[in-house]
């Protein structure tokens, strides 16, 4: 956390205002309280104010009810993670207060609903307590019978006052959110908001004002990772998808189901995971790269079909929004334990592409890249997102849609002849000729799962099987040669290199910043292309004494985790070690640094 964050203990007397550059606000309540809505408003407001923002949420896997939190970190500078400790805790219930006070920094502010929370007297000196009868004041303001309705918007008003947020912009956001409904709904929301805003915070605390953000380059869009994936697919020209609902993937399919018809496309909800991957493969085979997606258990069911995609060389994009496994596991929590499944989860030798976005913005751009790799190399491409990115809201520079949006309508111009599995192309790829295309030679392609000759017809020839296996492998090797070497964050040489993939990039880079500020020689490296790996890793690793692969998965039988195991196998380098955890939560910066220090010390002792 930067020094300019809220650290000042409250002064007695009149509230005073101090300038801050960032704040971490944790809202704790139950899942039906609409706390995600408060977080969403704050995140969206930050995006509109050219501030950086990152959120983190946990939701119970029950249908209604159960404790839930939403944490939002807003900064005028770069925000890399959702923050280790909160500056302000908004607690709706006793369990929210009891369970989350420890996440508040010392002398931070706990704003609690005094209708439900009995504060702990012993903790009064450690944290600044502000009790407000949120529930009854909300009822007083808007009346009505819904006992908890509107208290989220009332609380938003309280926070707006505390952080001197831009009221007209918030009113506009509230209007956009509730504007489509009955006018009384919007009026109620605005009344609740103003009641909160005008309520006295008491005389014990100060208010804050964010320093003006540095960046004013372009406007920003605010969305979560699942939205970014769905819209990325649309920008990439994908017009067909099929899937089966599963947490935390479902909202990608809900968005595409709703949006694709606007573009002449459609997204089909299938009877099961196998039908959906099959339907998507059918559409892809018919000419335009299609998408399917799921979470771990569903991806397992799709594995056989993915093998067909590799064999028949039919492009496809598969999104896996990872959650905790194995089996039903931790449906609403985060884990990075499907990497091995993504690379190897099929039968036979079935090389395919695996990409992992590091943040919400990358979800958008990587979707387009995934589609283009699939088309170029005629291969299934897996995007490994995770629950943390899926639900995390970020603001990022608005993409240039006019430039980015692509049309991938298949070309049905008749061809003279066509060899779908030509063994003599430089990189093993051919441009696909799809159904609906006349082949004048009269020899038509068959896409099949049996090993085949160059026209797709079955063969039992041992030589052809070896050649075709090599062909399928060489396509990925050709792709690898085009990939950029990843860039080291921090100096390219030093003591410790933290290696990560997926949603851990932010916390890892923040860990590097913090370690270097304390004088430690730490850098980090983020791997976006998981399979094939990009070139240049070996020379990067040679610049460090310790290469710690930080992953949210189990250390495994041999102690290296999943990416760690892959890197060990690839580079045979004993200084590659794992730093793994499986508590279903994102890495805290402090946690990474403490674990890295212990790991290195331990390794030194063993020397």
């Amino acid at each position: 956390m930067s020094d300019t964050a809220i650290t000042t203990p409250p002064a007695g007397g009149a509230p005073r205002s101090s300038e801050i550059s960032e704040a971490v606000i944790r809202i704790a309540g139950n899942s039906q309280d609409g706390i995600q809505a408060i977080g969403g408003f704050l995140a969206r407001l930050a995006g509109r104010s050219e501030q950086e923002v990152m959120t983190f949420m946990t939701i119970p896997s029950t249908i209604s009810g159960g404790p839930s939190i939403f944490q939002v970190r807003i900064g005028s500078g770069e925000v890399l993670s959702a923050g280790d400790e909160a500056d302000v805790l908004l607690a709706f219930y006793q369990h929210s207060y009891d369970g989350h006070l420890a996440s508040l920094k010392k002398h931070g502010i706990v704003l609690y609903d005094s209708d439900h929370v009995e504060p702990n007297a012993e903790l009064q000196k450690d944290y600044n307590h502000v009790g407000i009868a949120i529930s009854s004041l909300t009822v007083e303001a808007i009346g009505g019978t819904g006992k908890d309705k509107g208290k989220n918007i009332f609380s938003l008003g309280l926070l707006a006052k505390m952080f001197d947020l831009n009221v007209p912009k918030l009113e506009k956001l509230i209007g956009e959110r509730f504007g489509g409904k009955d006018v009384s709904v919007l009026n109620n929301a605005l009344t609740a908001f103003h009641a909160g805003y005008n309520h006295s915070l008491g005389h014990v605390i100060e208010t804050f004002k964010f320093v003006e953000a540095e960046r004013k380059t372009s406007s920003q869009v605010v969305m979560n990772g699942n939205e970014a994936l769905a819209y990325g697919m649309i920008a990439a020209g994908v017009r067909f998808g099929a899937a089966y609902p599963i947490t935390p993937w479902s909202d990608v399919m809900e968005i595409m189901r709703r949006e694709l018809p606007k573009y002449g496309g459609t997204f089909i909800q299938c009877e099961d995971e196998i039908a959906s991957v099959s339907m998507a493969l059918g559409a892809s085979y018919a000419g335009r790269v299609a998408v399917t997606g799921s979470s771990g258990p569903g991806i397992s069911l799709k594995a056989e079909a993915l093998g067909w995609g590799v064999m028949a060389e039919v492009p496809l994009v598969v999104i896996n929004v990872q959650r905790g496994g194995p089996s039903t596991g931790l449906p609403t929590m985060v884990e990075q334990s499907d990497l091995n499944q993504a690379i190897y989860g099929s039968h036979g030798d079935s090389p395919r592409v695996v990409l992992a976005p590091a943040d919400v913005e990358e979800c958008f751009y990587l979707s387009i890249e995934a589609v283009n790799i699939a088309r170029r190399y005629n291969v299934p491409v897996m995007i490994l997102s995770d629950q943390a990115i899926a639900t995390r809201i970020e603001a990022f520079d608005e993409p240039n849609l006019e430039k980015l949006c692509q049309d991938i309508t298949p070309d049905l111009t008749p061809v003279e002849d066509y060899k779908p599995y030509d063994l003599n192309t430089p990189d093993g790829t051919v441009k696909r000729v799809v159904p609906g295309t006349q082949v004048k030679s009269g020899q038509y392609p068959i896409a099949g799962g049996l090993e085949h000759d160059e026209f797709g017809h079955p063969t039992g020839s041992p030589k052809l099987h070896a050649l075709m296996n090599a062909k399928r492998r060489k396509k990925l090797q050709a792709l690898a040669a085009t990939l950029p070497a990843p860039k080291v964050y921090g100096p390219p040489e030093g003591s410790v290199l933290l290696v990560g993939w997926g949603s851990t990039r932010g916390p890892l880079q923040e860990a590097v910043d913090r370690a270097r500020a304390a004088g430690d020689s730490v850098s980090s490296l983020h791997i976006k292309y998981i399979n094939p790996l990009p070139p240049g890793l070996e020379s990067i690793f040679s610049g460090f004494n310790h290469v710690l692969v930080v992953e949210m998965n189990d250390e495994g039988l041999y102690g290296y985790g999943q990416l760690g195991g892959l890197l060990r196998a690839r580079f045979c380098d004993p200084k590659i070690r794992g730093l793994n955890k499986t508590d279903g939560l994102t890495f805290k910066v402090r946690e990474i640094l403490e674990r890295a220090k212990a790991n290195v010390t331990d390794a030194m002792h063993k020397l």
Partner: protein
Amino acid sequence: MSNTANLSPSETVASIPAAVPARKPLSKKEIASDHPTWCPGCGDFAVLALYFKLIEKRQLWQEKITTVSGIGCSSRFPYFVQAHGAHYIHGRALSFASGISLSRPDLHVFVFGGDGDAFSIGGNHFTHTARKNIKLTYVVMDNWVYGLTKKQTSPTSPLGFKSKTDTWGALDYPINPMKQAIAAGATFVARTTHSNPNHVLQMMEAASDHDGFSFIECLSECVEFYDGAFDASNPRKGGKFNLVPANHDVTDEQAAYKLADEAFPGYFGVFYKNNKPTKNAKEAAVSANAMEKLKGLKDWQVLQKTFDRMK
């Protein structure tokens, strides 16, 4: 082309004589590909020959059709047809074919497969493709046995059928494909047998004319592992080929169900037909409606409108 620049597309087509002479219908020679790998005497040969005949007779071009199958003896089908085709995985041919059908309205998709593909490993997909009424033609070559894997019990094997997995005779009650199809909501349900080629062709023609999910159960004898299974339906073997009674109302679901319940050899012909809107048409209507509101906007502009709301 300069003199046609100001004409609308329809006028252009109408006023210029076709430059290319009308295409000759495809001959059997042009549409036949690999020699089938089936055993001599297999009923599947007849189905393939009649598919060729259908293509010839209906003047279907190779770029207008796609032939899809799953896994099994009969599912080798697409390799024997010289046209675009796919040999997909076991039991999932219908889902794969649905992806083609829903994304490519210009193609007619024909799916061929066996009883294991349709009613065992792919049973779920059969039900849902039927209920969604996805436009395609599905011909199940039912031989009451697993042939490719050499004589195991199939979901349509009759009780008591001795196979390698039921040496004492099949214990499980067989599936009745016709009842299954009607109950699942299939909008065209017909039954035929390989031993009556003219009838097979009639059913194929009627199925391909149907706008919706058209299903044909075609008895197709496995001479290797279930010789004589369908003799009772074959007049040449002393059996009886009963056409669906002339007074049968194909729109009457209950009557169709009753026909399907008849003991073997039962009836042959169209049991049920219903012209309800297809999934293809419904999805297209949703899309047309959504696009109407955004008329004149390019795709990127539609997405921009969405992004503008996320600022």
